[in-house]
C-alpha cells in the first residue's frame, strides 16, 4: 500500500510537469488554433535560461527564475512574430510543420550553446523531504504539484474572468469577427505566445531537480505532454492538467507493476483507447459539424 501511495505521488508529480507543458499547448491552441509542436523545446530553452542565470551567473534562485520567465516570454513573442504570424490562417498542417521546424532549430541551437551534457541547478527544493507517518515525500515533487495547481487556477480564472481572456477566446472562435469587434487580434496572439512560453519555462525550471536538463529533454517530454493535452481534450485548461496527471500516474504505475517496456508504451495505449471511445478527449467539447 505504501509503495502504491509513493508511486502515486511521484506519478502525480511527473504528471504535473506533463500537465504544465500541456497547458502551453492548450493555451496556444485555445487562442489561435495553432498546435505548437515546439512547446517542449520552449520548456527546454526555459530550463537552459534558468541554468544560465542561476547556475552560471550565480543569481538568487527566485530572481533567476523570474528572469528566465521574462526572457522566455519575450522569446515566445519573437517566435510568434517570425514563424507563426505570416502563416496564420493557412491550413493547420502548414503550421504544425513550421513549429516542428522551429523545434528542430531550437534543439540544435541549444545543443551548440550549452553543450550536450546533463545540467543541474541547485534549488531550494532540491533537498529535504516531508514525512507523513512512514510516507516520504520529496520537496521537489511537492513543489511541482503546488506550482501546477496555482498556475492552472490562475490561467483558468484569467481565461474566464478577465477581459483579455475573453478577447482570447473570442479571437479563437473567429479571428475576423473578433477583429471587427475591436479586438487587436495580432497583439492577443502575441500575448498568448508569451504566456505559453512563460508557462513552459515554469515547467522547465521546476523540472530541473527531478530530471536533468539537456537539449533533447523537450522532445522527450513534449511527446508525453502532447498525449496529455489530447487526453484532456485539446482546448480545455483543467483537462490538460488532468490528462497530464493521468499520463504521469499511468506511466509510473506501469513502470512499477508491469514488466519492463510497458512504462513507455502504456500512456499511448491508454491514449489510443480513449481516442477510440471518445474522439474529442475526456473534456473536449462535442461540436456539431457544418459543411
Amino acid at each position, binding site marked *: 500500500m505504501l509503495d502504491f501511495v509513493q508511486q502515486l505521488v511521484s506519478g502525480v508529480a511527473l504528471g504535473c510537469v506533463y500537465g504544465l507543458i500541456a497547458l502551453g499547448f492548450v493555451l496556444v491552441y485555445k487562442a489561435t*488554433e495553432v*498546435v505548437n509542436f515546439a512547446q517542449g523545446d520552449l520548456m527546454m530553452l526555459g530550463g537552459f535560461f534558468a541554468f544560465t542565470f542561476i547556475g552560471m551567473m550565480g543569481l538568487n534562485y527566485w530572481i533567476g527564475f523570474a528572469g528566465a520567465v521574462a526572457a522566455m516570454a519575450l522569446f515566445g513573442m519573437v517566435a510568434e512574430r517570425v*514563424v507563426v504570424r*505570416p*502563416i*496564420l*490562417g*493557412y491550413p*493547420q*498542417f*502548414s*503550421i*504544425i*510543420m*513550421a513549429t*516542428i*521546424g*522551429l*523545434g*528542430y*532549430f*531550437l*534543439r*540544435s*541551437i541549444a*545543443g*551548440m550553446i550549452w553543450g*550536450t551534457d546533463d545540467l543541474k541547478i541547485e534549488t531550494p527544493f532540491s533537498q529535504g523531504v516531508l514525512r507523513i507517518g512512514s510516507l516520504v515525500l520529496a520537496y521537489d515533487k511537492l513543489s511541482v504539484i503546488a506550482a501546477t495547481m496555482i498556475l492552472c487556477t490562475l490561467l483558468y480564472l484569467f481565461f474566464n474572468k478577465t477581459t483579455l481572456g475573453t478577447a482570447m477566446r473570442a479571437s*479563437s*472562435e*473567429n*479571428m*475576423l*469577427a473578433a*477583429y471587427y469587434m475591436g479586438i487587436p487580434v495580432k497583439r492577443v496572439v502575441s500575448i498568448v505566445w508569451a504566456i505559453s512560453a512563460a508557462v513552459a519555462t515554469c515547467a522547465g525550471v521546476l523540472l530541473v531537480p527531478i530530471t536533468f536538463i539537456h*537539449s533533447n529533454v523537450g522532445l522527450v517530454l513534449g*511527446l508525453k505532454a*502532447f*498525449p496529455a493535452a*489530447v487526453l484532456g481534450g*485539446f*482546448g480545455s485548461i483543467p483537462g490538460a492538467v488532468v490528462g497530464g496527471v493521468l499520463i504521469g500516474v499511468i506511466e509510473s504505475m506501469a513502470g512499477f507493476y508491469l514488466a519492463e*517496456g510497458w512504462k*513507455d*508504451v502504456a500512456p*499511448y*495505449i491508454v*491514449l*489510443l483507447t480513449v*481516442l*477510440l471511445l471518445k*474522439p*474529442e*478527449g475526456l473534456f473536449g467539447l462535442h*461540436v*456539431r*459539424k*457544418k*459543411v
Partner: protein
Amino acid sequence: MRFLFKTDYEDDIKLFPHSGYVVTYGVLLALLLIAPYLLSSYLMSQLVFVCIYATVGVALLILTGFTGQASLGHAAFLAIGAYTAAYLQKYNVPFPVYFLAAGALTGLIGAMVGFPALRLTGIYLVIATISFALIVEEILARWESVTHGNEGMRVKTLSLLGVTVPRDSPTFYYLCLAVLVLTIVGTLNLLRSPTGRAFVAIRDSETAARSMGVNVALYKVKSFAISAAITGFAGVLFAHKLSFISPEMFTLQLSIEFIIVILIGGTFSLHGAVLGAIFIVMIDPFLTYLKDDMPGIIAGIAATFGAGTATAGNIQSKVAAFASLNGLKGAIYGIIIVLFVLFEPLGLYGRWLKIKLFFQLFPLYKRATFKRQKIYVKSERNR
C-alpha cells in the same frame, strides 16, 4: 504555346496529355537507366535511397496529399515491411514471396490503423499515428524471439530467381527504380479511377463527399491500407539496402523526414514526392561537401580581397570550427522546414510550375495566380 482542348472526360484523365510528356519522361527514364554507367558508386547509392524515399513519399502523398489524412507514423510501416522481409528470409522464403508478403502484412496493419482513425481528424489523427509508431518501435525492441530486440537483425544479400543481387550492384538500383516507377504509374492510375476521385473528394470536404454518396469510412481505410502497403514494399528494399536493421532506425525522426519529403516537394502532385526525396537524400552529401570545402573557399575569397595569410588561415580555422559544430545539421534542417512553410508552401514542384508559367505567359505573369486564400474563420474545429 500549346493549347489543350479537352472535349470529354477521357481527355481530362489521360496519363500523357500531349506527346511532349512522352518525350520528356522517356528521356528522363533513359537517363536513369544509363545512370549506373555515368555516376560514381557513392552517388548511385544515394540514388537508390532517393528511389526508396520517393516510394514512401508517393505512399504518403496518397494518404496525406490526396486523402487529407495526416500521418506521422510511416516509419512504423516501413519498419514492419523491413522486419517481415528479414524474418521470412531466415526461413529461405524467396524474394518475390516475402516482398509481396511484406506489402500484404503492412497493408493489413495499415487498414487496422485506419479503422480507429476513422473518427479522428486533424491533430487527433496526428497524435494517434505518433502513438502507433511509438508502440511499434517498442514492440520491435521487446519482441526478441522475432526481431532480436535492440541487437537488430542482419539482412542477407538479396537473391532474385537464383541470382544474387548485392546492395551496391546496378541490378539492385534497377529493382528499386522499377518499384518506384511501378508505384508512380499505379498511383497515377489509382488517382484517375473512381477510388482516387473519392480520396480527393474526402480531402476537400468530408461532409460534401458523404452527401455525394462516397462511403467515407471505406475509402479512408482503403487509403490507409494502400499507403501502408506501398511503404511496406519500400521497407523491404530499405532493409536490403542497409543490410542491417534495428529499432532505433525507425524513429519518429524518420516519420518526420518522410513528411518533410512531401512538404518540400509539394503536396499536390506526385512530382513532389520525387523532388522532395532528391532534396532530403542529397542534403547530407551537400552539407558534408560544405563542411569540407567551404572553409578553404572562404579563406581563398578573403585572401583575394587582400587579407593577409595569417588572417586567411585564422578565418579558415574559424569557419571549419563552426561547420563541425555538433547539431548544425539539425539547425539547418529546422531552418529549411520553416523557410519552405513560410515562403514556398507549394514546394519545389510548385516553384517549378511558377517558373514554367512565367515563361509561358511572359510578360503577363502575375504573382497572384498562386496566392493562397487565408481563412481567419475558425475552420478546423467546426468542420
